[in-house]
C-alpha cells in the first residue's frame, strides 16, 4: 500500500459498486429498453419505427461500448487511489 490506510476490502467494495452500477445500465439498455420496456417507448418515433427498435439494433451496442471504457477509466483511477495499480 503506497502511503494510505485503505484496506484491500475497501478496494474490492469500490470495484463491486462500480460493476453493479455498470451492469444495471447494461441490463437496462438491452433487456430493458430493447426488449421488455419497448412498449413504453412506442410513442417516440425514429426513422419510421420507435426508439425501442433502435435500442435493440444499435443503441444497446453503443451503450455497451461507453460502459466498458467508462469502467476501464474509473477502475484504473480506483487502482491508483488504493495504491494497487501496476507500476
Amino acid at each position, binding site marked *: 500500500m503506497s502511503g494510505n490506510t485503505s484496506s484491500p476490502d475497501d478496494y474490492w467494495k469500490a470495484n463491486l459498486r462500480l460493476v453493479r452500477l*455498470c451492469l444495471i445500465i447494461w441490463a437496462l439498455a438491452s433487456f430493458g429498453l430493447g426488449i421488455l420496456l419497448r412498449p413504453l417507448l412506442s410513442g417516440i418515433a425514429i426513422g419510421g419505427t420507435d426508439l425501442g427498435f433502435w435500442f435493440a439494433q444499435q443503441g444497446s451496442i453503443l451503450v*455497451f461500448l461507453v460502459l466498458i*471504457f467508462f469502467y476501464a477509466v474509473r*477502475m484504473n483511477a480506483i487502482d491508483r487511489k488504493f495504491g494497487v495499480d501496476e507500476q
Partner: protein
Amino acid sequence: MGQQALTYLVVGATFALYLGIAFWARAGSTGEFYTAGGGVPPVTNGMATAADWMSAASFISMAGLIAFVGYDNSTYLMGWTGGYVLLAMLLAPYLRKFGKFTVPEFIGDRFYSQTARLVGVICLIVISVTYVIGQMTGVGVTFARFLQVSTTTGLFIGSAVVFFYAVLGGMKGITYTQVAQYVVLITAYTIPAIFISLQLTGNPVPPLGLFADTEGGVPLLQRLDQVVTDLGFGAYTAHRDNTFNMALFTMSLMIGTAGLPHVIIRFFTVPKVSDARWSAGWALVFIALLYLTAPAVGAMARLNLIDTVWPGGAGQPAGALVYEQRPDWMRTWEQTGLIRFQDRNNDGRIQYYNDRNPAFADQARQNGWQGNELTVNADILVLANPEIANLPAWVIALVAAGGLAAALSTAAGLLLAISSAISHDLIKSALKPDISERGELLAARISMAAAIVFATYLGLNPPGFAAQTVALAFGLAAATIFPVLMMGIFSKRINSTGAIAGMLAGLLFTTIYIFVYKGWFFIPGTNQFPDTAAYWVFGISPTSVGTIGALLNFGVAFAVSRATQPPPVEIQEMVESIRIPRGAGTAVGH
C-alpha cells in the same frame, strides 16, 4: 478481367499475406505459442480478438437471420456484443492477473483439484470442437460458390491454410494474422453496405441509412414494413416472438460469449491487468463496426430482394418477376441449390409471399397464387448482397475474401484453445509432468494438427446446420465455463466439490435439453420431441436453454459448497491476490 479471375486474385493475395505474416511471427517458445509472449498491445489485441470472435456466423449468417425475421432477431446483435461488458468487468482482468496459459489451468488451481481441471478440459473441447465444425463448413460453402470447386475441395484448401499458419505460428502467428484478417473482413463487409445505403437512402453511413428516408421521403423501415406486410409476412419492426424466450436467448448469447475459451485466452496475451480492461473495450469497438452495419445490411437486402422479385410492386398480381427474366445472380445461386424456384401455378412468374399466414390466404387465392414459389436460404444473403445490388466485380471478390477471413480466423483461435488444453492441461499436467518445453511445444503442434484433421473430417459430414452446432457451443459455454470462472473470482466460499458438481449439472442439463429436441449428437431422427414452440418447456427454445443451465450451475455449486468444507486458507488468499492488479507478471505455465 472476369469475375472468376478477379476472385482468385483477391482471395489468393489475402492468403499469401496471412502466410507471410505467420512466417514472420513464428513462435519459438511455449510462452509465444500459448500467449504470444504476453507482449501484444491492447489495440492490436482488441483487433485480433474481434477477428477471432467474428466467425462465419457473424459475417455470413447474422444479417440474413435479421433480414428474414426483423426485430425479434435483434437478440443476436445484443447478445453477441453484450457479452464483452461481462468479460471486461467480471472475468478478463482477474484471469490476466492470475497469469497462466489456459482456462482449465485456472479452474484446476482455483478449485485445487485435478478433477475440476479435467472437467474443464472436457467442457472446453466439446465447446470448441462443435464451434470449429461450423467454421469449416462455412469455409467449404464459400469456396464452393466463389472458386467453383466442390465443397470438399474447398474444405481441404481451407484446412491446409489454417494448418500452416496456426501450427507454425501458435498464438503469436495467429494474433498478427488475425489483425490482417480483421482488416480484410471489415472492409469486405462495409464497402458493399456503403454502396447499397447510398443507392437506397443517399446516406453513405449504413447505420444512419437504416433510419433514413428512401426516395420519395418514406423512411426505409416504414417502406420495408409496408412491402413485407403486402406479401403476408409480419411487419419487420414488430415484436412477435415470446418475450420471455427472447430475453433468455439474449442472455444465453451474452454469457456464452463471456464463457468461450478461445475468447478468454486472448486476454492472457496483453502485458498488464489494466490492458485487459482496455482490450475488451477495443475488441468491442472493432466488433461494433460490423455489428452496427449488420442490421442495415439485413433490412436493405430484404428490401432489395423483394424489389427484385416484385418489379411491378410487392403483392400486385401483375408485379411478379417473369422467371425467364431473372437476374444472373439468381441463376448462379440456383446452381448451388440455396435458391429454389417452383412454378406452382404455372404462370411463368415468381410469386414470393408468406403462404403460411391464414389471414393472407384469401387474398393469395383471389390473385391465383398457389403457394410460395421462391425459397431463399438466409445464409446466402450477405454473399449475394453485392450481386443483388449490381455492384462491381471487385466488390464481389472482396466479399468472398472477407467470408473466408472470418471463418479462418475463428477456426485458428479455436484450434489453439483445443491444442493448449490437450498439450498443457492434459499431457503436461496429468500424463507426463516432466515433459521439456520443446516436447510440450511439439505436443501442442501435433495436437493442433490432429484437431484440424478431426474438424475437417467432421466438416465433411456436418451434424447439422452451422447455426445448430453454434447454438450448442454457446449454450455449453454459458452453462459451464462462465459460471465456474465467475464464482471462482467473486466467491471465496465455492470449493472443489461445488465447482465440479455445478459444471457437470450445467453440462448435462444443457446437452440433454438440446439433444432431446435437436437429436442425440445431432443425428437426425433421434430427437424425442419436434423442435417447435408447442413442445418446449415453458416456451424455452433449445438455443436459449444455456441461461437455465447457467442458473443451475450457480445454484448447485452454492448448495454443494455450503454443505461441504470451505476451501483451504491458501486458496482464499489466492482469490484475494487475483482481485488486486498489482504484481501481475507475464503469463507463465507451471
